């Protein structure tokens, strides 16, 4: 199994398309940080102060690296799935399209082991992508804007002391990674249904967009559907910045996300183990 995973890693990480996400965020994030440093930060400050100056006395380096790290994370969680699907959508469909399953599956290796190896590599790529984006945004923000306590304005104002922030961010990145695992798992499942890599990307993004619309609209019908949509649990990482931290809610969200991930993986296994390879 380890050899299969290694082979899948080689196949995945030697392709340039694997690095599209890294390149995109590697360019966009420094540009945004530079834009903030060259004036954007002051606009932020003015906007924030106009909101708060009547009720609070604001002092110190409020718009610091931690603040922008949090800001980037809130902004990018919708964009990260796009780059994840480029790789996840190609994992099975790409082999079908290229015709390489004809060799891969005739070498007495079970289909389930091949799918398991591909799934593990998809998760590794997802984790690396999320942690790269998180590390890049937080690292650059701290380098550009320095440290300090984190001011969070969400259902009131919360200030988290800087000493606790590495722990909070670490757990938050872990939860964000889990949420993205579900996206990759869904795309991986779609990838098993077709021999065209574009289909799974479009299908996954369609599911995410439609789900976001459903959970955003305050209609009664949509509210009833909400618990069954995985995007409803994507904000689990934000709860780590609440006070007190709602561990029960987070645990429940984690269990649900893991459940979705397992369901998508099992669906892939079941479907692919009975699929006729015609390409």
């Amino acid at each position, binding site marked *: 199994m380890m*050899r*299969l995973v290694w*082979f899948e890693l*080689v*196949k995945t990480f*030697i*392709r*340039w398309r694997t690095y599209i996400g890294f390149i995109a965020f590697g360019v966009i994030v420094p540009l945004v940080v530079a834009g903030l440093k060259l004036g954007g930060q002051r606009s932020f400050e003015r906007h924030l102060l106009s909101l708060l100056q009547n009720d609070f006395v604001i002092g110190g380096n409020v718009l610091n690296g931690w603040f922008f790290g949090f800001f980037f994370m809130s902004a990018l969680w919708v964009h990260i799935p796009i780059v994840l699907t480029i790789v996840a959508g190609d994992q099975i469909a790409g082999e079908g399209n*290229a*015709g*390489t*399953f*004809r*060799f*891969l*599956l*005739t*070498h*007495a*290796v*079970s289909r389930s082991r091949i799918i398991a190896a591909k799934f593990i590599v998809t998760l590794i790529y997802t984790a690396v992508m999320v942690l790269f984006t998180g590390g890049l945004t937080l690292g650059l923000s701290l380098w550009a804007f320095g440290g300090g306590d984190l001011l969070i304005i969400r259902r009131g104002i919360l200030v988290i002391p800087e000493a606790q922030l590495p722990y909070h961010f670490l757990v938050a990145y872990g939860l964000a990674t889990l949420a993205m695992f579900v996206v990759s798992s869904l795309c991986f499942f779609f990838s098993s249904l077709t021999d065209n890599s574009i289909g799974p990307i479009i299908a996954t993004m369609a599911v995410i967009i439609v789900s976001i619309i459903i959970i955003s609209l305050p209609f009664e019908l949509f509210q009833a559907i909400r618990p069954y949509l995985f995007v409803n649990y994507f904000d689990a990482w934000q709860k780590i910045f609440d006070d007190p931290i709602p561990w029960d809610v987070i645990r429940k969200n984690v269990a649900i996300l893991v459940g979705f991930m397992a369901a998508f993986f099992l669906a892939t296994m079941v479907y692919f183990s*009975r699929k*006729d*390879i*015609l390409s």
Partner: protein
Amino acid sequence: MSETVLRTIDLTKRYKNRLAVDHLNIEVRRGDVFGFLGPNGAGKSTTIRLILHLVFPTEGDVEIFGASLKQARHKALGKVGAVVENPSFYGHLSALRNLEILGGLQKPVTRRTIMAHLDRVGLADRANDPVKTYSHGMNQRLGLALILLNEPELVILDEPTTGLDPQGMKEVRELIRELARERGVTILLSSHLLYEVELIATHMAIIHEGKLRVEGSVQDLLKKGQSAVLVKTDRPEELLKYLETDGAYRSAVIRSDGVLVELELERIPELNRRLVGAGFGVSALVPQRTLENYFLSLIEGREAQETRPMERKGGSDKP
């Protein structure tokens, strides 16, 4: 009697309303070069995919080295190497890396072993080039290198010479013969080209519309095909009349390129002497491969028209 290496048992595959393979029973014995012949769309590739468990049978089973594919797929396919249709590789990876990955799925293979096999198929100097830069012929050769890497006892090749130039075809056929002769590998080879099967195979089966039409040794089946010679002469009409009067030959027919005379091939010199003696200018006597007629009659459900006794027929180039 030699060991049965591969046996299909009432193998059937239905795609919605189309019956691609219909209760197929074939048997390949150790040491055979088994030609699996049929026109395009006959069900050859589907059968091979069924044998390799790439598609699942609607009915029936396959036994390979005595192991049922349904019950012991791993064991059944453990000693099998196969190229199905065009060999497809990871284009962004080198040949070396492709063989490392695809050849190393069962057990690790050393680079030295890979290089030896690439050298055997004449690709050693391109080992580090991405496979997407390879020609079709090079891909075919790489496919053969891959299946030899795991030293299979049964090699399954689906239309192995399709798309190759004449030199490439010759090389692949020589490699297949060498595998069978020197390494004792049993080979199942599908093709829509009768002459290819005749050249390589010891046994063959003809399939059409998913059904087995005939199976046996190539020699036995060749006997079923009639022999004939195409006589190129300056006076075909008179030649036909002469042969009708003479009555020494089974049939003759005028074609656009000459007169086709049905006879045993060893009688060609005698025919030549008689025609020259009768004053005909004979520019060529071309032996015809009439097994093709037999093949056509099997797949089309009719006797081949070209060998009907003393019938005049023009315009066809087919023997």
